[in-house]
């Protein structure tokens, strides 16, 4: 792999927040606010565009509360999961044996837009009973979230907005990952900003495309990244093939990017226009309003399992 020639054990452009060991740059005040709210027993909403570090932010919180935190990524939950069972399982052996809920735990719910209304009601009940001391939800926007009014009311004004990182923050972040002094790094700071802005000031995209560009750089036998390495990346690469295991799901399936979401085409039922999770009997996407084509369930069941990205222009549900 390209990064081995630079002496790294894993890619410095990894997008796995839990693997990332660098400091939380540019969000120190927001982190202090979040920690305060968690100490005082609150429901909080962290709003941040996808790919701009909200999971990394939650990881920084986990580091502050070892042992007392339950982290849940709603994107990875099974549709019919009862979150009460999940909390019992996380309560250790005692909890599992006696089906006891924890007390005073802290719950972090990443990507709350994919959590079912019934599970949200359960969380509210457990919060009131103090099984959960505090809860943090993350999502794109509090105002447009699917949270029921009873939860929004409990959150009140405890909303933390993770602003876009400044250019200096982004430079510092990349430098820390590369463990180089500026000027010596193979990724010049000016180029970092040029690429960051090229990809809409989205951190995740910066990292993914930097990964691809670095692969190209090493294949060409070069030692420094230039703008040329970032040209035509989408056309040249099956974008998912060359990134690290970050974009491979636990079952080995390559995850595809649809709209602003990353989806597993074998597990998720999603709108092919915007990527929102939908249920199989919905006729219209609740997020973008696209109408779904009618499909026979039998036809879907007999389709052979093979990897393909969903390139259909017409909105349709995809299920394997």
């Amino acid at each position, binding site marked *: 792999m390209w990064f081995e020639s630079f002496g790294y054990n894993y890619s410095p452009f990894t997008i796995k927040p839990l693997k990332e060991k660098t400091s939380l740059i540019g969000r120190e005040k927001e982190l*202090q606010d979040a920690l305060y709210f968690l100490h005082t027993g*609150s429901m909080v909403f962290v709003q941040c565009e996808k790919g701009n570090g909200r999971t990394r932010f939650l990881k920084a919180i986990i580091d502050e509360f070892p042992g007392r935190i339950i982290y849940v990524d709603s994107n990875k939950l099974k549709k019919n999961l009862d979150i009460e069972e999940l909390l019992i399982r996380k309560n250790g052996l005692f909890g599992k044996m006696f089906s006891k809920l924890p007390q005073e735990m802290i719950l972090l719910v990443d990507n709350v837009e994919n959590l079912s209304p*019934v599970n949200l009601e359960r969380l509210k*009940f457990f919060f*009131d009973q103090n099984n959960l001391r505090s809860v943090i939800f993350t999502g794109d926007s509090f105002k447009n979230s699917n949270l029921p009014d009873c939860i929004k*009311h*409990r959150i009140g004004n*405890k909303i933390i907005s993770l602003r876009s990182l400044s250019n200096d923050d982004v430079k510092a972040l990349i430098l820390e990952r590369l463990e180089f002094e500026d000027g010596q790094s193979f990724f010049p700071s000016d180029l970092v900003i040029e690429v960051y802005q090229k990809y809409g000031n989205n951190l995740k995209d910066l990292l993914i495309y930097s990964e691809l560009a670095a692969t190209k750089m090493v294949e060409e036998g070069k030692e420094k990244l230039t703008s040329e390495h970032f040209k035509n990346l989408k056309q040249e690469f099956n974008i998912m093939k060359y990134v690290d295991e970050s974009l491979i799901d636990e079952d080995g399936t390559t995850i595809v990017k649809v709209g602003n979401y990353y989806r597993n085409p074998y597990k998720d039922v999603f709108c092919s226009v915007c990527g929102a999770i939908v249920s199989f009997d919905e006729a219209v996407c609740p997020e973008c309003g696209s109408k779904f084509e009618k499909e026979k369930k039998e036809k879907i069941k007999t389709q052979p399992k093979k990897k393909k990205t969903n390139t259909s222009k017409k909105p349709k549900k995809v299920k394997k």
Partner: protein
Amino acid sequence: MKTELWYKKLGYVENPFSIKPAFFNDEVVGYDAEVDSLIKKLAKGEVCFLEAEFGKGKSTIIKYVINEFVNHNKIIHISRNKSDRALDYENLLKEANTGFGKVFGLKAKKVILIVDEVGKINQKDCEQIEKFMKSKNIFSVLFADVSFAKTNLTDSLKKKIDKNLIKLKDLIPNDAVEIVKSRISIEGIISDDLIISIFEKSKRNTRSFLINLEKVFRYSFDNGNQKISSNDLTCL
């Protein structure tokens, strides 16, 4: 946490403005008449409905009621919105039982059933509740939600509720001062007038009031003040 929490500076172990219902087992402020009426009706075996907007104190009153009856009756307290399907009340009654009754899988008797958030209640729920009321397993019932009119309770249950619909009125400013006094010692820290200002800015909603109180106190004490001034209300 880098800075000391504001309430620890004041000598409190926990956030005194916690929004968790009855977190400090405090008295219910401003609703004495409603709570007394509710307790009397439940003690007589009636079916009641507690109606109030979010954050007015339904869950706090429910906790107070549970504390009143817990030494005399078995209590089942559920949130109906936790499930899309009708609940299994027979199982709930068995779970509520204790001792040999529980060992032999018998249903508890004279249970007070408290159903919070009844939005998803359906006919099957209602039929089960009425069945177990007839068999004396359920002694009395308290439903709670934002609106009685919008629930799916059966006509039969609605008729049983009849005059037992208890609506929580808006609290008055003096109640707001009492709430704060029940949580912290306010002498020299915050004036009654400022408390009432925060209460009005919170649209007289108890939960919003507690959230705003916390915000003002945090803002003021984190800025090194020793008491709350009108300037601190700019953070709202």
